[in-house]
């Protein structure tokens, strides 16, 4: 995964109480459609200048939450606060920028007129408008395209115009609803970094909705993982990946090897046990309140694949397996293993870093990981 450089300064404060008043706060926001809880008691604080991503599968409530912030959807209950003040104003009085999934550029206006629209509404003088439009076009790299109509622009260019339009009136917060969903991968990656750069330059607060975990990891200071209308976890990209709060989060973000079992304690050493296996787990894992089942998650890059007779450490868990497939991806090799217990395992090793020969398909191997690399999460 090629993550771009991320400013960590804001993100690292996550666990501290917020120093500044939150730019955007959601308090127990819910939206119910009959029995369906599209959004269910969402609590969230977004700080000034932060880039927060709502990540989740479709229908998880992330877009509805964004629509509530923009004012297009009225919450069933709960409050939205901007700079500590509750907002109930209609959308046109909220001063929040928004970039829509399908760009929503006005087809009867040129790119420049689209960008100038919010300024015109705000009664900026013609001269002011011209200056701001030129600046905004320049910022998104479309200085030469101001007189084109949306239909004369490519998808990527249209998205840039939409972005410029959402930024030109200097809103405090900009919402982006899957803005790159319709673009091809290469362009998407390019625009991800560009949006990030602009956000950083302007110091603007951005809330970004996506169902692409990779996009979320690349762009965000913090990620809010949604599922079934509820917030599953809020954290920095590292926290979400390294310390997922639930099996859903572990499974949804990144690839995972998952073993389900129950906790057992033998003389201070803790194990996750099922009929098929018995793995040591980190000592700091506490028993779930309801004594329910747990899942042990190992990230593929933490899994070492060794010869069956290899010597392993006490602080390591081992699984006997057979190599089912090896895929060479240029920068890494991806292994698919079938364990004796029947579990399917995935390993990923960077080419040129891992020493030794690559095991061949059909050979017996030992899949090994360090106890401390075990992520234990509750199921459900």
């Amino acid at each position, binding site marked *: 995964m090629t993550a771009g450089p991320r400013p960590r300064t804001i993100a690292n404060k996550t666990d501290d109480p917020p120093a500044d008043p939150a730019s955007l706060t959601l308090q127990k926001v819910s939206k119910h459609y009959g029995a369906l809880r599209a959004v269910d008691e969402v609590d969230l604080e977004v700080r000034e200048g932060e880039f927060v991503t709502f990540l989740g599968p479709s229908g998880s409530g992330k877009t509805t939450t964004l629509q509530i912030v923009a004012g297009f959807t009225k919450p069933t209950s709960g409050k939205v606060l901007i700079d500590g003040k509750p907002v109930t104003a*209609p959308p*046109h009085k909220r001063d929040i920028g928004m970039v829509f999934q399908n760009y929503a550029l*006005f087809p009867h206006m040129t790119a420049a007129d689209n960008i100038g629209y919010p300024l015109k*509404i705000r009664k900026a003088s013609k001269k002011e408008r011209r200056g701001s439009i030129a600046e905004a076009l320049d910022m998104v790299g479309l200085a030469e395209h101001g007189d084109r109509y949306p239909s004369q622009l490519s998808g990527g260019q249209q998205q840039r115009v939409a972005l410029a339009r959402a930024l030109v009136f200097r809103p405090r917060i900009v919402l982006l609803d899957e803005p790159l969903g319709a673009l091809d991968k290469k362009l998407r990656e390019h625009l991800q970094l560009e949006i990030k750069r602009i956000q950083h330059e302007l110091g603007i607060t951005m809330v970004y909705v996506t169902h692409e975990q990779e996009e979320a990891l690349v762009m965000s200071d913090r990620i809010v993982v949604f599922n079934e209308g509820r917030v599953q976890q809020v954290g920095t990209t590292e926290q979400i990946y390294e310390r997922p709060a639930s099996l859903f989060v572990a499974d949804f973000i990144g690839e995972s090897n998952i073993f389900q079992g129950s906790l057992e304690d033998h003389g201070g050493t803790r194990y996750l046990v099922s009929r098929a296996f018995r793995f040591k787990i980190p000592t700091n894992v506490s028993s779930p309140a309801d004594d329910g089942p747990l899942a042990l998650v190992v990230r593929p890059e933490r899994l070492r694949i060794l010869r069956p007779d290899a010597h392993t450490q006490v602080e390591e868990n081992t699984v006997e397996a057979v190599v089912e497939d090896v895929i060479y991806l240029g920068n890494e090799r991806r292994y698919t293993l079938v364990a004796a217990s029947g579990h399917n395992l995935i390993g990923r090793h960077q080419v040129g870093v891992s020493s030794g020969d690559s095991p061949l398909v059909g050979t017996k191997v030992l899949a090994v990981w360090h106890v401390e690399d075990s992520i234990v999460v509750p199921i459900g």
Partner: protein
Amino acid sequence: MAAGLRKASPRRGNRWAWFVLPALLFLAVFFVYPLYEMLNRSFTEPDVGLQNNVAFFGTDVYVRVLINTLRISFLITAICMLFAYPYAYIMAHASRRTAGVLLIAVLVPFWSSILVRTYAWAVILQDTGLINSLLLGLGLVDEPLSLVRNLLGTVIGMVHILMPFMVLPIYAVMKGIDTNLVKAAANLGSSPLDAFRRVYLPLSLPGVFAGSLLVFVLSLGSYVTPAVLGNPDQAMLGQVIVTQVQSLLNWGMGAAMALILLLVTLLILAIAGRIVNIGDAFGGRTTD
């Protein structure tokens, strides 16, 4: 329409173009030939020359009829537009069920003959008709209102008949407007009314334009409704043509009038074509 024909022409040797041949043959035999025949008569009956056209523009009554026809058509178009725009808007933004009911309500008139509908209006609007009996019965008026055999009757009947031609093109265009555009306008600071004025209205205008063109052109050539519901002293050109041909057997003059009506219609289409792309207005796609 003109744009449709242009589109169908076999450009770049499209072999499917042959499929328009039957339609073209049909038009040639049953439209172009009679048109030619009429053109011919207007200049040859009773004598060869421009005498019919000279007589038309030299006769005060005829010129007044032409102006009257244009005026009534314009009025009908304006009233249709006024009713149809909000109707189409509600239809385009209502639930699917409501939209279906509204659509059927506007299409039902299509399913019965114009003559039947027109006489039905006469029955409803006449002095002893439904409306006047009701008003008299309730004591709201002392003597029957004159609702028919005048301009009002013509307009009521024509608006009813032509409403679908205004509603449907507007509805089609409105259906194609991305709802996110109005949201985007609101997000950028436009009040609902402002968003409508700056974004929705301009985007829906092609539909209004298409509908107006249809209604106006159809009004120009109307005959049955003004004949039954209108004031005989304020005849429209269609009525006068019928009188010329049927009562006076003056084919030359009738043909000349028909030709003038046709030219006026073409002129309007030509002017309209300069303002917007007619193909666009009727839902034809133009690619850049």
